[in-house]
């Protein structure tokens, strides 16, 4: 079935079974492999993308339900060679080891910061509870989120 997806500000046409997961279609049809398969049951957050600015587990989202909505993947964060503050903060804080969880972490964090520009540690923990890092870099990710939040609160130049 032909579907139209709005991904990172672009209109993309795909041919896909509407029951296929958004994750599979983004990765395999559109080559947006930043979102990852980790569990297939929405329990690890590696598949996280934003739909309408909110963190969504794309592995349990049928692609048919995402048609016509604003989808943001990790690939959409860098603008004209400039990294998003969250991406820069993750690098600065060394908030990754194998980095497989990183795109999902960044997007879940972005979703949080959209709603809560100055999150507390507790708010970060709660918002990020659905994202697994098996390498255990949680403390540095928390530090990166605080740093990015501060950067994002600064008035734009």
């Amino acid at each position, binding site marked *: 079935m032909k579907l139209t997806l709005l991904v990172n500000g672009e209109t993309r046409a795909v041919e*896909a*079974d509407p*029951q*296929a*997961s958004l994750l*599979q279609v983004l*990765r*395999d*049809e559109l*080559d*947006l*492999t*930043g*979102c*990852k*398969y*980790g*569990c*297939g*049951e929405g*329990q*690890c957050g*590696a598949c996280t993308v934003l739909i309408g600015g909110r963190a969504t587990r794309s592995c349990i989202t049928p692609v048919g339900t995402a048609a016509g909505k604003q989808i943001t*993947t*990790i*690939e959409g*964060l*860098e603008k004209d060679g400039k*990294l998003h503050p969250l*991406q820069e903060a*993750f*690098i*600065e804080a*060394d908030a*990754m*080891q*194998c*980095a*497989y*969880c*990183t*795109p999902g972490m*960044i997007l879940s964090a972005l979703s949080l910061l959209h709603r809560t520009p100055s999150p507390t540690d507790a708010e*970060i*923990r*709660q918002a*990020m*509870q659905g*994202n*697994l*890092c*098996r*390498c*255990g*870099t*949680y*403390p*540095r*990710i*928390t530090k990166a989120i605080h740093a990015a939040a501060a950067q994002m609160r600064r008035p734009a130049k």
Partner: protein
Amino acid sequence: MSDWTFLEYDADLDIEIERYELAGVGGRVSDVEPRTACTDARHPTSDTLTRRDLLKVFGAGLVVLCLVDSSDAQESGGGRRQRFGGGQAPREIGAWIHVGEDGGITAFSGKAEVGQNARTSLTMVVAEELRVPITAVRMVMADTDLTPYDMGTFGSMTTPRMVPVLREAAAAARETLIDLAAAGLKCDRGSLDVEGGRIARRGSGDALTYGQVAKGRKLAQVIQPVVPTTPPAQWQIEGHPAHKVNAREMVTGRHKYTSDMKRPGMLYARVLRPEAVGATLVSADATAAEKLPGVKVIRTAQITGVVGPTQHAAGEAIASIKAEWKTEPSVSSSNLFEHLKKTAPNGGPMPDELTAALAHADVKLRAEYAVAYIAHAPLEPRAAVAEWNGDRLTVWTGTQRPFGVKEELASAFGMPLDRVRVFTPDTGSGYGGKHTGECAIEAARLAKEAGKPVKLVWTREEEFRFAYFRPAGVIEVESGVSKDGTLVAWDYHNYNSGGSAIQTPYDVAAKRTQFHNSRSPLRQGSYRGLAATANNFAREVHLDELAHAVMMDPLAFRLKNLKEPRLRAVLEAAAEKFGWGKAQPAPGHAFGLACGTEKGSVVATCAEIAMEPQANSGTLKPPKFHVVRAVTAFECGAIINPEHLQNQVEGAVIMGLGGALFEAIEFENGALTNPRFSKYRVPRFGDVPKLQTILLDRKDIPSAGAGETPIIAIAPAISNAVFAATGERLRSLPMMPGRA
């Protein structure tokens, strides 16, 4: 090693990868021959590579190859690889470095990057010796055609074994470039300075870049690892923080893990599987699958699976197959520990000296400890992309043993080794769980039948069911201590879980230490720290029990019986930072500590827990608590990258919380009942206590690895804290099983 005996027992489901790791590490050699066969393999890249071949592959310039002792490079069970250097001690090439005519520096290592940040530390080492910025060095890793043979990325060996080899090769390259520059500039090499890829004559404007020196050359130099290298006190790059070298690729999602890869014409695959270990396929009705567009059902003697045009189609196809499996009765988690003890051989009678020491001890103690099977659960599951070109096979796969997987593939297809190439892209972790090549072989079989490249990514459920586990184990300790707290007798038995860190680091005159090999009902193999996670748990809880029995403070008791200075140092550092003995815990809180050593490094952890109120239901339940704070002191010699080392230590402690508190594989009759993250709880943001990490930098000690040892003290520290809070000893891991 004389008081450490292995008792043999046939256990065919064991993978025994641990045996590979025991050979040659720290001078200790296992006295056990590995059960899995080492193929009598020869690796053309090491064997027959001539100097001319190298230059043909890498282009003109300078190539430096560094030899290693083949006992370092080979797999246990005897090396049969061909050697460089005729009559002397057998050697192999450990690493090579190329300096090109454009001045580009490329270093090659057979190690794999699995999140431990070896790519970055190895790059730093080469940049240091060649006096260039980190960004000027390209690291090629884990390509069986381009990089030298390496037995695998495990055993915390990259830092103590690969780092010195690359360091030597880079230093030798630097020295050769200086010699060549001196000839080119017609001056004495003593008047030359090296910086930023340029060799300049002091006091004059004359200089040559590395590229200019390398231009027109076809030089290959084979060195022994005796080249003088930069001492740690003079390090400019090593010993300082450095970001992950490919961090930008990671945060932008540009890096392609194996599971992200696409090859022209590629199909997506799934394999038909049972639920239980050792089940055999009786029948499979694939009529529905065969009807799906673009889907091909593949059935051979070795594999039944499907390939399709999308992941979704392959998933639908495999789910539609009606399969009947024949299972064998097997063990369940409820009778696991009994089974492990029953199926292990006895160790024979206690030596008289030990019997006497126990008999004369003022206080005797006997206790039993147990650890469950746990899963590595790497976030990227096993994945492989396999492509046949005529009789050549190329496989991309996330593994810790690319050369091992190459051998497995060659063996599976009866092919010569030089027809197989394995790449390992930087991989979504392993933790000791990605040593074996099942997924690569499956993908290659399906690709051969399909006549097209195939990508196979295991589902999370498959990764839980069909990978392998950290062994479960039972540990029995009988000990004796004097009234004044001196250890006098120690009889230690580990059933099934293994020999890592089985030897006590404490001073005891009369002791016996035995590993008993049981029949494991589930597939088991390496895990981060291997059996050190179990042995250190049992030992450190038992030490605490002894301390309590003679009414001594746990820290004082350990220090009284411990001479080893490095272990004493981390114990004291952790206790000092934690405030051990200084502050009293808050109401409902308690403190515990533990230490340990393995693989050339030392760790100590102090933990603070807070008890949680429980509804009094009248039935016995494990105590409920959470970990408030953990202070860890760690030392592994000279630190190469302090930021990444801290990541490894804290990451290991956080991972260790899982094994300590809630992780356990549950199974009925050999089939897992919790093969999902929704049922197998792993540490999340909410589980992380306040962490403090002290890294002791010993520039006078050669750098050791840090991937594993930091995990071994957190579990006993927590158990000891729970005892301090409640008087209840938690001797079985996990300590809060089944808690959602």
